[in-house]
């Protein structure tokens, strides 16, 4: 992700492709240049145009070591009543702060249950 981008490209999978999970663990490695930014790693679930679930982890909130790769993880509990075609989306959202490159690697959603 570079300077002017507000969003990264999105990673989309159907809920069924992820194994119809109820609990997920979001895992990633991130490299931030500093903490002067507002940056969230977002996971959402949508059906047609409506968002059924939205959750995020603030990367500057949990990463306090800069210019080095740091692991990030978060436990997510999806709502009941999802259907196989519901779309699970993952992306980075930068809502403010300094213009700098941000790196993200090994982005994974692991099914826990």
């Amino acid at each position, binding site marked *: 992700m570079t300077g002017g981008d507000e969003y990264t490209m999105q990673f989309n999978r159907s809920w069924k492709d992820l194994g119809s999970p109820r609990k997920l663990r979001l895992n990633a490695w991130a490299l931030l240049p500093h903490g002067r930014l507002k940056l969230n790693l977002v996971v959402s679930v949508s059906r047609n145009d409506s968002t059924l679930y939205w959750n995020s982890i603030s990367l*500057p909130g949990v990463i306090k070591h800069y210019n080095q790769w740091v692991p990030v993880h*978060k*436990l997510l509990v999806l709502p009941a009543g999802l259907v196989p075609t519901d779309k699970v989306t993952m992306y980075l959202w930068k809502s403010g702060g300094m213009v700098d490159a941000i790196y993200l690697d090994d982005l994974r959603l692991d099914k826990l249950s």
Partner: protein
Amino acid sequence: MALTSVSSSGPVPEYPLGIGSPMPVQREPLRWTDYALTILLHAGLLTALYSACYCFGLLDYLPEQARLLNWDGNNFYSIAVNDYPTDSKLGTNAFFPLFPYWWRLTGLDAVGISILNAIWAWVGAGVLALTFGLTRRQLLLLLALPSLLFTMVPYGEGLFFFFGALLLRGLHRQQVALVLLGLAGCCLARSAGTTFLPAYLFAELLTWDRRKSFGRQLGELLAGILAVVAAVVLVMWLQYRRHGDALAFYNVHSLWGHKFHLPETLLNDSAGINVLWLDLAALVVVVVALVACLALGVRWLLGLGKAHTDAPRLSKAVLFSLGYAVGAGYFIVFYQNPDIVGLSRYIFASPFFFVILAWAWQYQQTQPRLWLGVLTACVLVATLVGWPWYFDNFMPLEATWYFVLFTLYCLAFLFIGKADFRWYRELSVGLYGINLLALVYMLNLFLEGVWIN
């Protein structure tokens, strides 16, 4: 001296906490010069630690003009230089006028006004120490609270602290003029009116004395309310003459999303893990204050129909401080949720926590298991942010370790006030050191421009 009501016409209270004091009682009451020297010692230690850490490369920034104007500092500077904006939608309208107008009057730069702000707060702390008979050790501990960094930058907190201290002294000594001055000063320095009014009513009602003149007490009560209302109306007028919207400061909060809604998710902190612990510690204070207010309120209600007894009542200053803490917590939890950033600024960068802690130190002489209540509050707030399973970026064991440290930190404040705790001297020195380090670290974050509220 017990934290019970003191009349200005009665005998001057003894300054040490008195019989049942958590600390060894001083042979003689401390004088204002003792407190002044203690504050100077703290200022010297703070300056020495910051400059040493900067010299060793542990801190990166010095408090320079441009860096001190970070975050709200820039808004205050804008009001000081240009007055309120002509656009009622701008965020600058959320800031209250006493500090920026005072800044304009002094003609100082950001560094100068920051030093002056710190002096206001330190003088306020001295007033509190003198009023409530704190020991030097207790005063040092309170001066090093990390959130007091907001009284050392170009924010309204320095003046708020000073006027808050006058208010508390007035409430404790029942000096109406000081109460009115404190109420008006605080409500001109910060958007505190909506928190102050319920707290003031709570304090006045629970100390209502049926032996005294009804008219006089009602007059004092109404005068206090009038002081708050007059301050808020003055702010409204100052903004109205600029852009025609008297409610601009309120509307800006709405634009920021500060509207009432019940928490639906776990609480979090937009400032991140290195500020979360302070905001959670403030939430612990809020929980304890809420329980105390409920207990005192119920006791007052049950006693309404009974004959008056001469039992000593709690000081108005304590009641007001408890009410203020509950009000501040209510605003953050219900108007800003799930983000609790800023709660530590409301609680610890105010004189009201000083009084709550002084009360707690004394209260645990009769209720030695107060620490169990604080422990319970710590577990509760940990749960509210997702411990043990849903605490962001922490595995359950890591989260547990985090909250064990957090709980020990909170409990340490109580245990330095326990007369039967042998290590209270060592503990208070350690706590002072930890807080001082956290204070310079937070100040460095602020100067770097990192969001800490």
